[in-house]
Each structure stands twice: as C-alpha cells, then as structure tokens.
C-alpha cells in the first residue's frame, strides 16, 4: 500500500485523524496531541497497525517529541506518530497495553530522557545502572566524565 492509499484508508476510517496526516521523506506522519495519543494509537491498531517498531524521543530543546513507528503487515505500510510533551513535566500515556513491544522501549526512553509513561507496568531504568543521575540523551545533560571531542572538521 503506498502512501496515498494509506491516507485514503485512514481518512475513510478515522476522519478525525485525517487532518493530522502529512508526508515527510516518503513516510506518513501523524502529529497528535499528547493527551490524545493513547486514543489515536488504539484507532491505529484497530486499523491494522499490528507491530510497534520503535518508540523513541527527540529533545528539541523546547519540548520532547515522542516518535512511534508503527507497521502493518496486512497493509505493507509504516507510519510515524509524533506527540510533544513539555520539558518540565514530561508525561504521556503508555501504549504497553496495546503493544507489549512498548514495554522495554518505553523503559529505554524513560532511562534516556526521563519521560514518564503513565500506566507502564514496570517503569525502571533499563540500560543504565539504577542509581544513575540524569538522563543522558537530553541535550542539556551534564557529566564531568564526558571528554568532549576536539573539533577537527
């Protein structure tokens, strides 16, 4: 299914998601309000996106942008779902109940960015040690153990 068919399919089934759909570098993107994310994710799963490929976040310096990559085996299509959460209180609903695959991936995002997923069954650090201070992939992460690489370019 190519991107236009996907858009039509999505618009016919869930008209309220339709205006949020855009195309970027050949991929369909849905930009959704953080508090509506779980609802939209449920719709998308019912539409046929049965695989959650990836959950990650980007620190845009003003906010955190959550990025979900969904995939559908029947439709042979992938889609991005993006939602923004404020930096000072980053909370978003967990999608672990829809796709168990989110379990570890959300833990990783929590570990690296400190974003709290409400409803997650077991939100702990996963890659770093439990007593780690700070969230390394935030752009303002400070650690005196990091040696900055001199600029050669």
């Amino acid at each position: 299914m190519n991107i236009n068919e996907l858009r039509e399919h999505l618009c016919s089934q869930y008209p309220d998601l339709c205006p949020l759909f855009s195309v970027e570098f050949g991929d369909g993107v849905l930009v959704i309000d953080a508090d509506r994310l779980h609802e939209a994710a449920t719709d998308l799963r019912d539409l046929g996106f049965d695989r959650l490929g990836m959950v990650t976040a980007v620190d845009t310096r003003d906010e955190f942008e959550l990025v979900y990559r969904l995939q559908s085996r029947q439709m042979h299509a992938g889609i991005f779902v993006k939602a923004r959460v404020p930096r000072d209180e980053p909370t978003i609903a967990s999608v672990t109940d829809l796709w168990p695959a989110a379990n570890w991936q959300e833990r990783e995002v929590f570990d690296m960015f400190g974003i709290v997923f409400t409803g997650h069954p077991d939100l702990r650090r996963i890659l770093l040690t439990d007593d780690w201070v700070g969230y390394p992939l935030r752009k303002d992460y400070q650690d005196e153990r990091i040696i900055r690489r001199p600029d050669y370019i």
Partner: protein
Amino acid sequence: MTEETIVNIGPSHPSTHGVCRIVVTLDGEVVVKAEPIIGHLHRGIEKMAENRTYLQVVPLTDRLDYVGSMYANWAYCRAVERLAGIRVPERAEYIRVIVCELQRIASHMMGIGSTGADTGAFTAFMYAFAQRDHVVELFEALCGSRLTYNYVRPGGVSMDLPDGWVEQVRSFVAQHPAAMMELDTLLFGNVIARARLKGVGVLPADTAVAWGTSGPTARGSGVNWDLRRDDPYSVYPRFDFEVPLGENGDCYDRARIRLWECVESCKIIDQALDQLEPGPVKAEGLPRLLAPRPGDAYDHIESARGSLGVYLVSDGSPRPYRMKVRSPAFCNLSVLPLLAEGHTLSDLVVIIGSLDPVFGEVDR
C-alpha cells in the same frame, strides 16, 4: 512446591552470549521467572553520534552489531541517503546486497554454532565457524578488516571489489549449501540436539508480532514477514528467493531456519553476481561534509537478527541532531521471560542462544 531460589546468571557467563545478566527465580530446577538485566555494554553510541559528522558515524555503527557490522552500516547509510536525497549507483547497490548476504551467512554461522555449543554439540560450532572464517577472510580482502568493516558509506561503498574477489565468492557460495546440509545432519539430525531443542521455548505467532520480534525469531513462529520481500529495498525485487518459515516457534525452528536462510542467501549472491555490471561504486558529486536539510528520516533493512532501523533527525548542521537505532536484538530479547517460564534452567541457556542476541546491539 519447593522453596523458591533466586539464581543470578551473568553478566559474564559463557551461556549468555555476551554480557547479559539474568536473574532467575527457580522452583527446584524449573524457571518461575527470568528477568534479563541488560545495559552492561551500553556505550552511548547514540549520544556520541550527535557530536560527529555524518561520515564519522559510520565506524560507530560497525560496533553496534559486531557479528553483522555490514547491516548497521547499510541501515545507517540508507537513512542518511534518504535524508540527503542521495542516489546510489546500481553497482554499489549490488555490492551492498552481496556483502550483506555474505554477512548473513557469517552471522548465522555464529548463531547456529552457539546453538550447537549450548546443546553440547561443540563440533557443530567448529564446523560452522570454519564457514564463518571463510566469509571473514573475504571481507578482509574487501576492506581490510575482519570485523569492523566501515565499508558501506553514504552514497555507495568505500571502494570497488578487489581483483579476483568475485571468483572467490563464487567458489565459497558453491561449496556452502553442501556444508549446510552436512551441518544439518550433524546438528539438527542429532537425537540429543533434537531432544534439547524441540518443544522448548515456544513463541506463538501472535505473541511474536505483539512483542515486536522480527527476523528468524519471528519467522521461526511462522510469522511470514521479511523486509527484503515485504518492504523491498535496494535491488532485492530483482532476485528470486524464498523466505524459510518455521511451524512450531520452538528453539529448533528458530535455529534451523537460520540454516535455510544461509542457503537462500547463497542463491541471492549467485544472482547478484550474475547481474553485477561495471560502473561507479559511489554517488557523484557528494560534498565532503554532508549537511542534509532539516527533517527526520527512518529506514530499515532486514538484518540477520530482524528489522534493523535507523532514525535520523537533522537540524541542517553537518552533524546528526539525533540518531536512534531500532535494534532487532533488543526486541527479540524482550520475549525471553515469556519463553523461559516453565522450562528448566538448562533450557534457559538454549532459549537465549536461539534468540541469538548480540549485546552490542541490544545495549547500543
């Protein structure tokens, strides 16, 4: 019901295939709960990438999946190419397919071999590793390194094939299927290995999909999903190959379809060598310093472990703003607690082996 014991396995344990720690709750010898604790090899590659130019990130991707470095190179380069709008010459695409299929063989040899070692058939490991050593030598001739190749670059590959390489690959591919048949009888025909593998660690197909597993782990459960065929990239649509599927989703199926994938890889390499035409191996007019326009791009390929994706965000500067590696081994390993439940401790070892995790990629 006896008293429960908690046993800690790892992080340095020969059966965890790397640096994974598993906290196992045992009832007698039966696993009640197995909790993997990962991150012992978390090297912060995603953070490091934010302070390197697009080209300088390529060597870092080598170190992700160190059993199959070419895949990470390729997935990363595809994301960069998508972001910067680079068109890759045809010959380079063919070369990429050839090296990645060879890499699949090398990687699967490690996977099958360690299954052998886990079930007590160490000889099979030796046989498999001999095949792997052939491939590694081919790669050394190609790019000068046995493990960390840094060969696939944005816009193509780093250099053309050396003289006589194609013939060497042909002779390797010619003998490989027979060696696989031998390994099949040696390992999967062995009554002990069958007893240790069959019916152990069954992963139902719907669980496999819901937990985001991919590659041989999912296909062993009969999930018919292979990006090479279902979301075709590069020149894969031009080749004729099969996707081996398992039926029961147990360790036996997971391990055994790796073997058939190697045979299919040989077919692909053969066809690719036939279709290989002379030409440039690098895109023309690439700037020294890539600075793609702002935006984000994702691309994925089918690696030996499953769908390996790279998500890149650019802010217009010559360095990636954010790089995320969607690693298949990470998702595959997350089903371990489900699989291990109810089996004995010795089966746990086999189950980890059948998932074939590489911790460079799990932990990044």
